[in-house]
C-alpha cells in the first residue's frame, strides 16, 4: 500500500530537521570520512595512496596493537567487575539506611564519577608518588617500606584498574540503588513470612528484580572504561613500557604524536565496531525498540 504524507508528517519532519542537521554534520559526515580515510595513507593529513584494507591488516596483526587491546580488555573487565560488585554491596547496604546518612553516602559515592577525570588522575598520581606521595608517607609512618606503584608493569596496571574502578563505583551504586528502591517491599515481606533468609531474599527476589539495572550499568561502565583514555594518560601515560597503553591512548598517539591519520582512522573504525557491539547489547538488555 502506498504511504501518503500528511501535513502532520511534514511538520514532524520539519521539527526534527535541526537535530538531524547536527547529527549529519557532526556524526554522520565525520564517521563517513573516518571510514573513507581509513583506506588511504594520510600522514600529516596529506592524502596519499589508496591502501585498501592495508591499515586494518596491519592493525590486526601488529603485536603492539594486540597487546594494547589485551591491556584494554583486562583493565575494562577488571575495573567494571570491581565497580559492579562493590557498587552492589554499597547499594544493598545503603538501601537499608534512611535519612541524611543515606543521602550523604550517595553524594560521596558520586563524587568520583562527577569530578574531572584529569583531576582524579592527577590526584591519584600524586597520592601514589614514590617519595612524596601520601600513600608512602603513611606506610613510612607505620614502619613499612614504600611502594612504587606506577613504576612496575604489574603494579601500574593494578593502579589503573583501581582508579578506574574508584571512579565508577558511585555510578554503579546509584543505578543499582534506584533498582532496589523499586522492589516491592511486599514481596520481601512475603518471603520473610515464608521463612526465606535475607540471603535467599537477595538471591531469589532482589537480584532478579534489579537485573536490568545491573546489566545496563555493566554495559555503560564497560563502554566508558573501554573508551577512557584520560585516566591512563594522566596516571601512567601508558607506561611503563606500554603496560597500560590502552587502545584509545594508542589511537591518540597515532594521530597526534605520529600523524598517521590513515592508520588511526582505521583503528577508530575498529574501536567503533567493538563499542557498537556493546551498545547493541545495551539496547537488547534495555529492550529498546524502534
Amino acid at each position, binding site marked *: 500500500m502506498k504511504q501518503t504524507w500528511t501535513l502532520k508528517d511534514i511538520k514532524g519532519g520539519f521539527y526534527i530537521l535541526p537535530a538531524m542537521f547536527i*547529527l549529519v554534520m557532526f*556524526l*554522520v559526515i*565525520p*564517521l563517513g570520512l573516518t571510514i573513507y580515510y581509513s583506506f588511504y595513507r594520510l*600522514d*600529516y*593529513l*596529506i592524502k596519499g595512496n589508496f591502501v585498501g584494507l592495508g591499515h586494518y591488516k596491519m592493525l590486526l596483526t601488529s603485536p*603492539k596493537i594486540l597487546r594494547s587491546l589485551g591491556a584494554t580488555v583486562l583493565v575494562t573487565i577488571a575495573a567494571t567487575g570491581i565497580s559492579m560488585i562493590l557498587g552492589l554491596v554499597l547499594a544493598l547496604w545503603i538501601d537499608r539506611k534512611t535519612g541524611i546518612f543515606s543521602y550523604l553516602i550517595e553524594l560521596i559515592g558520586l563524587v568520583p564519577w562527577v569530578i574531572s*577525570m*584529569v583531576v582524579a*588522575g592527577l590526584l591519584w*598520581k600524586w597520592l601514589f*608518588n*614514590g*617519595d*612524596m606521595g601520601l600513600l608512602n608517607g603513611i606506610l613510612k609512618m607505620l614502619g613499612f617500606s614504600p611502594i*612504587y606503584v*606506577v*613504576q*612496575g*608493569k604489574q603494579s*601500574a596496571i593494578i593502579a589503573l584498574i583501581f582508579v578506574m574502578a574508584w571512579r565508577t563505583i558511585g555510578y554503579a551504586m546509584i543505578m543499582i540503588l534506584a533498582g532496589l528502591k523499586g522492589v516491592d517491599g511486599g514481596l520481601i515481606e512475603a518471603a520473610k513470612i515464608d521463612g526465606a533468609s535475607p540471603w535467599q531474599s537477595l538471591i531469589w527476589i532482589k537480584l532478579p528484580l534489579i537485573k536490568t539495572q545491573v546489566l545496563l550499568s555493566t554495559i555503560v561502565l564497560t*563502554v566508558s572504561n573501554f*573508551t*577512557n*583514555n*584520560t585516566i591512563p*594518560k*594522566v596516571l*601512567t*601515560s*601508558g*607506561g*611503563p*613500557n*606500554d603496560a597500560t597503553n590502552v587502545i*584509545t591512548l594508542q589511537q*591518540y*598517539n597515532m594521530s*597526534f*604524536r*605520529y*600523524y*598517521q*591519520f590513515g592508520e588511526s582512522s582505521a583503528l*577508530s573504525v575498529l*574501536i*567503533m*565496531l567493538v*563499542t*557498537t557491539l*556493546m*551498545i*547493541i547489547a*545495551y*539496547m537488547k538488555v534495555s529492550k*529498546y525498540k*524502534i
Partner: protein
Amino acid sequence: MKRRTLSILLAGALAAGSLTGCGSSDNADSSATADAKTSDSAAASQKTASSGETTIRMWTFLDPANTENGRSVALSQMMEEFEADHPGVKIVVEPQDYNIMTAKFLSATSTGDAPDIIWCARDELCGVLNANALEPLENLFLADWTAEEIADVDDVFFQFGQRDGKHYTMGLSKNSVGLYYRSDLLEAAGLSVPTTFDELLSTAKALSGEDKESGIQRYGLGQAFSTESADPQLIVNYIYDKQGSLFNEDGTANWSTQAGVEAMEWIVKTVEEGATPKEAVNTANEDSILEFEAGKYAMLLLGGVRMPNIREAASFDSSAIQFAILPGGNNFDGWFAGVWSGSSNKELAGEFLEKMYSPEADQLWVTLGGQAPLRKSTLENMADFFAKEENQYMKIMSDSFTNAIPLSNEYTVNGFKFDMNRAIQSVLTGGQIESSLKEAEAAFNSANGR
C-alpha cells in the same frame, strides 16, 4: 529484519558518538578555552570584516589575555604596537592546545580555514614543510634583509627552518634542553658543574641522600623517562656525543649501536646507583618539575625556557637555581612561526611575523618573557642584563644554539624522543638493552614510514 538493521545503525551512531566523546579530555580545559577564544575571534573577525578592518589570525599556545605569563604579556604588547602602527588591522590570537595545534593547522589548510600565522613545534616542522603549508620568508620580508641582519639571526633554529635554499620559518620561543642545578648544594658539597657523563654521574651520586632540612629523600639527577616527556633525555646526548648523529642518512633510526648500548648502560647506572629514583621510569617532565621545585632533585634535565616559572615556584632559595650545558651538547627545541601559504593576508601576516623577530620585540621576549634572545645583537646590546646572575641562563641557552645537537628537517622525526624513552622503560623493567633499542628503532621507522 528491518528493525534489526535500524538497531545496528543506531548503535553504530551511538558508538561513533561515544568515540567523539572519548577524545583527549585531559586537555579539556585548554581546549574549551581555545574554543571559546576561537568563537570570540570568529565573532571579532566578522565584526572587523563588516567594519572594513583586516584581521590577521594567529594560532599559538600563548594567550595574550594571560597577564601572569611573561611571554603572553610580551606578545600582547607587540600586538598593540602593531595595531597602532597599522590602523585598520587587527591581530586576533586564537590560543590552542599545543598537543594538537599542528594537526589542527594541517586540517585547516585543507579546508581553507587555517590561520594566517602558525606556531609549529620542532618535531612537526618537517611534516608542515612537506605539506607546502608555509610561505617562504624571502617572499615576505627576508629578501629585503641585509647580510648583517641575517647573520644576526643565523643559528641552528634559522638553519632548521630552511629547505631548498628558502627559509620558511624562524625560531620563536627558543628552547635549550640543559641541566638545571642548585648551586647551593654543589657549593656545600665542594663540587663544580659537571661537564662529562662520568662527572655528571659522580656528582649526582654525591648529591643524593636525605635532605637534612626537609627530611625528604633527595636524588642527584632528575630524569623523566615517561613517554609523555616532551624534553629529550640524556640518551640523545650520549649517542650524539659518541657517534655524531641519531639517524642514518635516509632518516632511519640509528640507536642499536655501541654508542646506544653504552648510553643505556649509563642511564641504568644512574638509576641503579641511586642518583636517579627508580620511579623515573614513568615520570613525566611535568612531574619532575614539581618534584624539583619541592627539593627532590639537586639537578634536573629540562628545557631552559621553564626557568622563570620554576624559580617562582621553588620551595627553596630560588636564586640557587642555575642552568648549564649538558655533556654532549644541548638539544635545541622550541617553536617555529611562519605564514600560511594559503593566507589571503600574507603581506600583513609577514609584517607581524617580522615584528615578532624585530630587535625591539626581542627585548620584550627577553625582559618580560625570560626567554633566550632571538638575535645575537640583543646579547651584545643587553650585556649588562645577561650578566646578572638571575639572567645568565638565557645567555647560556643562547650560547648553546651555536653548538646544539643538530636535526635535519628533510625527514620527519616524529616521536623519536618517546620511542627512545620507551626503550629506556623496557630496559628499566627488565628488558635486554639491544633488543629494546632495536624495538625502538623499528617503532620509530614504522611510524615515520621508513
